[in-house]
C-alpha cells in the first residue's frame, strides 16, 4: 500500500499545457467571459496564476450601461442572464483593470464586441496595441443585446465580414466565440475559420425565457436572456464535437462545466481547452478543482501529456 503511494508520488506530473492559436497556456482551463469580471474580483478566492488564461468581461469601445433589472433568473440547473454587456469600456479597462492583470503571470484574453461592424474594427485596433493582451475573443454571439452581435452570429456572411475586418485590424491570436442558437453550427464555424479565425469558442448561451407566474411578468426586464449552467452541457458537448470535426483550427469548449468530468467530456470529444462560466458563481475555486481533476485523470489513465486525452473519443 505505502509502496503504491510512493510510486504515485514519484510519478512525473503529466504535461497539461496546450497551445491555442500560438499562445501557450500552462493548462487548458480558463474562465468564461462575463463570469469572472476582470480577474480581480475572484483574486481572494483562488490563485489566478494557476489558470490557463484569464478571459475578461466583454469589452466595447465606450463604456456600456447594460440592461435594466432584473437581469438574472435562476432556472432548473441553469441561469438566465440579460446583463446587456455592461462593461467599463476599453479606456477604463486599460487604466483600471490592466495594472492588476499585469502582475498576474497568466495570459489575458480580451473578450470584446461592437455595436456595428466599424466598432468591432475599432475595438480590435485598440486591443492590438495592448501588450498585456495575449489574445482576443470576438463575441459575435451575445443573445442579449440587440446590436450586440446576434445578427453577426447567426448569419454566415455577416460573421465572415466581421471576422475578416477584425483579422485585418490586429495580429494577435483571434478566437471567435460562436452562438448555439443556429440550425447548423458547422456552417458558422467554417465561415469564421475561412475569414481568418485562429481558434473557435463554443458555446455562448442558449436564448431562453422565464415567467414569474405570480405576477405573470417575465422574470427578466430584457424579456429573453442567455441560458447557462449544467443543464446546457449536452448541447455544448454536441456542438463542440461537430465543430471540431468541421474545422482545422482549435476549439475551446464551454457550457455547463462544474466538475472535472464535465471538462473531460469536452476534451475527449476534441476541445483543446475549456472555459468555466456559471460554476464560478457557485464555487469560486471550481477551476482549480477542474485543473486538479484533469491532472488526476491523466495520471490514472497513464497519460503523460494532455494531448493524449484531447480527441481521444473511441468511436
Amino acid at each position: 500500500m505505502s509502496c503504491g503511494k510512493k510510486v504515485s508520488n514519484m510519478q512525473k506530473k503529466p504535461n497539461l499545457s496546450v497551445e491555442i492559436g500560438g499562445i501557450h497556456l500552462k493548462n487548458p482551463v480558463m474562465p468564461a467571459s462575463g463570469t469572472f469580471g476582470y480577474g480581480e474580483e475572484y483574486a481572494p478566492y483562488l490563485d489566478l496564476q494557476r489558470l490557463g488564461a484569464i478571459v475578461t468581461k466583454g469589452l466595447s469601445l465606450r463604456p456600456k450601461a447594460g440592461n435594466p433589472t432584473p437581469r438574472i433568473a435562476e432556472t432548473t440547473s441553469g441561469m438566465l442572464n440579460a446583463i446587456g454587456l455592461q462593461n467599463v469600456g476599453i479606456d477604463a479597462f486599460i487604466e483600471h483593470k490592466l495594472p492588476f492583470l499585469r502582475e498576474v503571470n497568466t495570459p489575458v484574453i480580451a473578450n470584446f464586441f461592437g455595436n456595428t461592424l466599424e466598432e468591432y474594427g475599432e475595438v480590435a485596433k485598440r486591443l492590438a496595441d495592448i501588450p498585456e493582451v495575449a489574445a482576443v475573443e470576438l463575441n459575435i454571439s451575445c443573445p442579449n443585446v440587440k446590436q450586440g452581435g446576434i445578427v453577426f452570429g447567426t448569419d454566415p456572411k455577416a460573421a465572415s465580414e466581421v471576422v475578416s475586418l477584425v483579422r485585418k485590424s490586429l495580429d494577435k491570436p483571434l478566437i471567435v466565440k460562436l452562438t448555439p442558437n443556429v440550425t447548423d453550427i458547422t456552417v458558422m464555424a467554417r465561415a469564421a475559420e475561412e475569414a481568418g479565425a485562429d481558434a473557435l469558442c463554443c458555446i455562448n448561451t442558449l436564448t431562453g425565457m422565464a415567467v414569474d407566474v405570480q405576477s405573470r411578468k417575465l422574470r427578466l426586464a430584457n424579456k429573453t436572456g442567455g441560458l447557462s449552467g449544467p443543464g446546457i452541457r449536452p448541447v455544448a458537448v454536441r456542438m463542440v464535437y461537430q465543430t471540431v470535426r468541421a474545422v482545422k483550427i482549435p476549439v475551446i469548449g464551454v457550457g455547463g462545466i462544474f466538475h472535472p468530468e464535465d471538462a473531460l467530456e469536452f476534451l475527449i470529444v476534441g476541445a483543446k481547452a475549456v472555459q468555466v462560466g456559471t460554476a464560478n458563481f457557485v464555487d469560486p475555486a471550481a477551476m482549480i478543482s477542474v485543473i486538479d481533476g484533469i491532472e488526476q485523470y491523466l495520471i490514472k489513465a497513464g497519460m503523460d501529456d494532455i494531448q493524449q486525452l484531447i480527441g481521444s473519443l473511441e468511436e
Partner: protein
Amino acid sequence: MKNYATKILSNQEISPGYYRMRILAPKFGADARPGQFVMFRVQVALPPLLRRPFGIFRTGFLPADCDGLPPKEYVEILYKVVGGGTKTMAELHAGDKVELLGPLGRGFDCGDIDREKILVGGGIGLVPLYMLARALKQQGCSVRLLMGGRTRDDILAVTEFERLGVHTYVSTDDGSLGEEGFVTQVLERKLDKYPEAEVFACGPMPMLEAVQAICTTRKAPLQVSLEALMACGVGACLGCVVKGAGHSDEAPKYLCTCKEGPVFWAQQLDWSKLGEEEGYCEGCHS
C-alpha cells in the same frame, strides 16, 4: 473574505417561517463589519444552483463543550422562508455541510459618535442592524431601534438588541405586538425629538421609500441596506445592479449592490426608479 467549506451548528425556527442558523466559521468575526453579508451555498448537490445572499446577523463563540475542545466560532444568519432555496435551508440539520462566501460587500458607516442613532428595521430587514447596533454601543453611542412588521410573527430578535442596551420600539401593522401602525410614524416622532439623529434602515422597499422621504425632508443622514438578485456576490456578474442618482435611460448609472453596497447612502441612489424592480420586496416573497 474567503470561501468557508464548513458545517451547520444549529438551525431553528424562531418565529413561524423564520429561522436562525449558526454556521461554524473560525476567524470569521475578525473580518466581518456591520452590514456585510455572505453568499450561502445551500447544498453541494443542485438545486438550487446559485448561492443565496444573507446578511450577517452576528458572529460569536459557542461556549467550550464538555468535549474539552476550544470554543467554536460561528456566523449567525436569520432567514425567512420565501422560496425553494430557503425552504431547503429550513430542512438542514446540525452537522450538514454547507459553504459560505464572505464577509462580502460594503457595510455601514458608523457616522458621528456624538449624534443620536436611529435604526429602522422592517421584518427580516432587521438582520444587518444587530452588528451595527453592537458596534455603535461599543463606541458609546445612544442607539434606538424602531422595529416594524406586519404582525407579531415578523418581529424578531428584539430582546437581543435590548441586551445591548438599545432602546427598542416595536410597531405592527395589525397591532398584534407593540404600537399599531407603521414604523415610519415612530420614526417621525423620534426625529421630532432628536432632529440631529443619523438614520440606518433596512426592510421592504415601500418602507425604505417612506424612510427616505422623511429623512430628506428633515435632512437627516440616511444609510440603507438594499437587496437584489445576486449570482456571484463579488462584483463579477453584474446581475445585482441598482440605479444610482442621476440615472437615466440615456446615461444609465448602475451601482453593484454586492460590491458597492449592500449599504448605500440615500443620496447615492435614484429613488424615483428604485422601487420598480430592485430592493427587497416583501410582498413578492409571499
